[in-house]
């Protein structure tokens, strides 16, 4: 077994598994402690419709300045104990690292200014786009895309980004194919083999950059993977049970970031973060009803049960009646956090957690697998696997069993067409050869190089 694999879960009791508290809190220089007992808001946003080019960059920078000023001003007004600001760069700002770095610098300077003048504690999470996609990609770890991705991480850390994160896309094309065909073996291979391999190389490099530049490697998310399943399931395009199984499987690949040295908080849109927290003890950011401004979900409340930061995913910088949308969204986050922090201070955090869970759990399998008790139970099984592939397979099998039992016990509402897919997925899982080479051969026969080219990953085609 790889010595970096977590061999047991971080939590022995459900009573210590709760929002705001993590076994391995992250301490910042300004005194913020993420996972140290306080739930912090984490604001994310995007630009209104506008092209990004060299000529529009001054306008782009102005947009970011206005957003950060508005957010800091609102945070100050509402007395936040601290907040995170995440900037998920748009593709041109990673293809042109100097643009992304300039945005990070401007944002960090404003935040530092508010801290110096007004005592507002904050931290900047900078997330370049994983641009290793598209027709021109020659290799995942060499060439223009890789170089620009790494240069953006390095430059952002140098200008003061407190955290580095990424929504990595290793295995994504193969996984997309798996989702659209509800092909569990292909999903398993794309996650347990390809994505985990990619995460290892990617995060070794991000961790190194962070360590050399006084930044913290925070974490990844299966945004391009399980969130794609989630969105399609919520449109009724694929079964929700597939999306739920996919979510838990994705935990293994997202955890690789922590195995390689990431310290948290894990990225907000990675709902599998609850499994990262359970297994590694690192803090996580989560999003739920607060992210309805960006996408719909069926986990609005239950997603908050174990959050250490509470995020809005993304909101466009447009004017609403109450002000600019990011500022309005931050206000909502602050009030959510206030309520939950007060519950903690009154010794009611576990009751709050359980109410959040109960309000969503039975209505959707994707919500059910975020229930803290279920998370701990499945995590205990996942860590028994000796390899990433084995762990991902265990995650799938255990989730299928859990969902079936929950449905039989009347704890989870599932229509007949969803229940039928539990059987289909189980049959698919049982068809997978135990031998990894044989399994790889089986998957390779059913895909094409435009979906997965092993050479681009320095993997051997079997």
């Amino acid at each position, binding site marked *: 077994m790889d010595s970096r694999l977590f061999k047991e879960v971080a939590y022995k009791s459900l009573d210590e598994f709760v929002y705001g508290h993590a076994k391995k809190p992250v301490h910042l220089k300004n005194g913020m402690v993420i996972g140290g007992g306080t739930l912090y808001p984490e604001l994310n946003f995007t630009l209104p419709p506008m*092209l990004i080019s060299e000529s529009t960059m001054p306008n782009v920078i102005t947009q970011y300045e206005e957003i950060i000023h508005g957010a800091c001003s609102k945070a100050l007004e509402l007395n936040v104990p601290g907040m995170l600001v995440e900037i998920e760069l748009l593709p041109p700002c990673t293809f042109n690292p100097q643009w992304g770095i300039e945005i990070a610098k401007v944002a960090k300077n404003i935040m530092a200014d508010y801290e110096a003048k007004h005592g507002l504690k904050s931290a900047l999470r900078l997330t370049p786009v994983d641009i290793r996609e598209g027709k021109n990609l020659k290799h995942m770890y060499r060439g223009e895309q890789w170089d620009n991705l790494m240069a953006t991480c390095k430059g952002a850390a140098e200008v003061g980004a407190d955290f580095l994160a990424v929504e990595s896309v290793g295995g994504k094309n193969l996984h997309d194919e798996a989702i659209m065909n509800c092909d569990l073996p292909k999903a398993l291979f794309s996650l347990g083999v390809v994505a985990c391999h990619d995460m290892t190389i990617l995060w070794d490099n991000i961790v190194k950059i962070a360590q050399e530049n006084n930044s913290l490697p925070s974490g990844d998310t299966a945004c391009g993977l399980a969130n794609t399943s989630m969105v399609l399931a919520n449109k009724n395009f694929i079964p929700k049970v597939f999306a739920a199984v996919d979510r838990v499987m994705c935990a293994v690949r997202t955890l690789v970031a922590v195995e390689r040295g990431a310290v948290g908080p894990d990225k907000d849109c990675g709902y599998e973060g609850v499994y990262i927290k359970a297994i590694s003890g690192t803090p996580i950011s989560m999003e739920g009803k607060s992210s309805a401004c960006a996408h719909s979900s069926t986990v609005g409340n239950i997603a908050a049960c174990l959050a250490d930061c509470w995020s809005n995913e993304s909101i466009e910088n447009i004017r609403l009646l109450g002000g600019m949308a990011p500022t309005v969204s931050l206000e909502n986050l602050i009030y959510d956090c206030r309520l939950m922090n007060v519950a903690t201070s009154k010794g009611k955090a576990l009751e709050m957690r359980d109410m959040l869970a109960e309000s969503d759990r039975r209505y959707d399998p994707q919500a059910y697998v975020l229930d803290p008790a279920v998370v701990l139970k499945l995590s205990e099984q996942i860590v028994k696997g000796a390899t990433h592939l084995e762990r991902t397979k265990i995650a799938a099998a255990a989730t299928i069993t859990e969902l079936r039992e929950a449905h039989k016990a009347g704890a989870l509402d599932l229509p007949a067409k969803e229940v039928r897919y539990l059987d289909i997925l189980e049959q698919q899982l049982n068809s997978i050869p135990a031998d990894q080479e044989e399994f790889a051969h089986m998957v390779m026969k059913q895909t094409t190089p435009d979906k997965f080219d092993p050479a681009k990953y320095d993997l051997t085609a079997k």
Partner: protein
Amino acid sequence: MSHFENLSEAVIAGNEQKVVELTGLALNDGVAPLSIINDGLIAGMNVVGKRFKEGDMFVPEVLMSARAMGAGVELIKPHLLDGEVPNKGTIVIGTVKGDLHDIGKNLVSMMLESSGYKVIDMGVDTAPEEFVAAAKEHNAQVVGLSALLTTTMLSMKETIEAFKSAGIRDNVKIIVGGAPISQSFCDEIGADGYSTDAAAATELVGKLLNQ
């Protein structure tokens, strides 16, 4: 049940083996090849499209049905005269310049192919001139533009302008889609149609081509 009903049922069930078997039987019995396609295979696929739109079928089931139909068509092709192979139209589709997201576009492509259209998929990050060149080369009737980002949706307008500059804007219907796109944005940039998802896109293309 008749050949056609059996074939339709097999297509709806996504049973490729059964479709091949029944298509062979129908050919042996002297049923007109084009009728096998239109009254058996496509009739079944029409039911699939309706059920999908109504939420009674998932995408993977639609794709299984499409593959089953495709297997039947392949068997029939040698029995058809040139030009008899049904093609409801040619569509060039892609994600616009600067945008790397493609799952929505891929779904639309699959649904269109499943419905009998020929789809030329340009992939992601497609420049306006690439769309124009592909539309010319393949004599496309429809061009589909996809974008997920607020900072790339304006590339749709640039692409439409490129079709105007190339003098072929009136030769094609241009449809748009993606999370930040709306009907008003579609109207504003002069596109011909907007759809909210893959099921609606197939219906939209059908309407535009029948105008």
